[in-house]
């Protein structure tokens, strides 16, 4: 591990490898292009799997988001987390953040998800382009993901 990685103020500090890689990808770009990368994540967000698409009651609404955004977290037998998010096409920024969370978290042990720093969405270097009020919904999304992981692992 290099000295840079140990810097507690580094954007990737305390992140699991997949999330750290995403953060590095964003940080390596000039600000304008970071938005384009977020747009790509929004386009890459997969639709809900059929067992959830047919049972919307299994999804929890993220009230902090202006748009109707729903999350569902499954923890499998190996205690690994699977994140499903539904967000409308009219909310590409939210979809983009959901795509980042999904790619960065999917398949991680529940323990590691719970230890994610709460500010992970603001590590992407988008504060200049995306207002703090918009970021609030993203923090809300991660808080709900963690709560669902806690509920799923408590039983």
């Amino acid at each position, binding site marked *: 591990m290099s000295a840079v990685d140990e810097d507690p103020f580094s954007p990737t500090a305390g992140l699991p490898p997949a999330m750290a890689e995403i953060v590095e990808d964003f940080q390596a770009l000039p600000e304008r292009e970071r938005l384009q990368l977020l747009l790509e994540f929004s386009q890459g967000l997969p639709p809900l799997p059929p067992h959830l698409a047919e049972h919307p009651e299994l999804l929890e609404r993220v009230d*902090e988001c202006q748009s109707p955004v729903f999350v569902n977290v499954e923890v499998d037998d190996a205690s690994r987390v699977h994140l499903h998010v539904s967000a409308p096409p009219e*909310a*590409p*920024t939210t979809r983009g953040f959901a795509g980042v969370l999904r790619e960065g978290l999917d398949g991680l042990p529940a323990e590691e998800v719970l230890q994610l720093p709460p500010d992970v969405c603001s590590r992407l270097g988008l504060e200049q382009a995306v207002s*703090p*009020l918009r970021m*609030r919904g993203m923090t809300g999304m991660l808080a709900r993901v963690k*709560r669902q992981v806690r509920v799923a692992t408590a039983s």
Partner: protein
Amino acid sequence: MALPHDGDEKLAAYAHPEKLVTTAWLAEHLGEPGLKVVESDEDVLLWDTGHVPGSVKVDWHTELNDPVTRDYVDGEGFAALMSRKGIAREDTVVIYGDKNNWWAAYALWVFTLFGHPDVRLLDGGRAKWIAEGRETTTEAPEPQPTDYPVVERQDASIRAFKEDVLAHLGGRLIDVRSPQEYTGERTHMPDYPEEGTVRGGHIPGADSVPWARAAAEDGTFRTREELEAIYQREKGLAPADDVIAYCRIGERSSHTWFVLQHLLGFEKVRNYDGSWTEWGNTVRVPIVKGPDKGEAPAVRR
């Protein structure tokens, strides 16, 4: 050269029908010289996913706000922005956006601070354009820079500052936030520490009229008759009243400002853009919690 007004019958009933166009009017005039179309959204990426052909994006956060001081850009900043977007002072600007034109109304209000002569909203906004299956593109236009003049921003007539609101206490105020924000129960939600204010409630004497009441199901503005029923008959406002509208940062209240000023023809309407994020964090300003409007205290000088 300004484009002709939309003669639509529903629009004709408003006090200033020239401030709105229908989707049909826009489709008919799209591409004509002298018409510039601006999309302004809550979501910074939405324009990129597809927009009205030829439209340019204006982002409230990165382009209309000053990046350092909590204020709008100044005359030079606005002139540079307009030039970059290919907008000339004499152009007819039609603004549309997501969320019932919430951000579009905000952008229009900022254009008005700089006295842009002809700026209109697309009734129904982005959602209606798309619902009607009208043309969109992801192609970004390459605007020709213009020599937009440097015009000093005129805040006095349509913008209220905290001091103006303090001096206005006892007068008519409209709080356009959600009922939960109005009563103050929405400040201490668990898990979401970034709510932004240390106190919840509303400004004493403010009536609660959530902004979206002015919008119909399809995102268009309610008819003149329906709007009068809400603001004039239900809330007892009169067009000669001096009214200040506010929300959290002044965006939702721009929508209400537009309704009162342009659709109902109120003579003096100001938008308090400091709104709750300023008032709810300010030391020793009066606040009322709960559903009652409350009494305005004597003005503290």
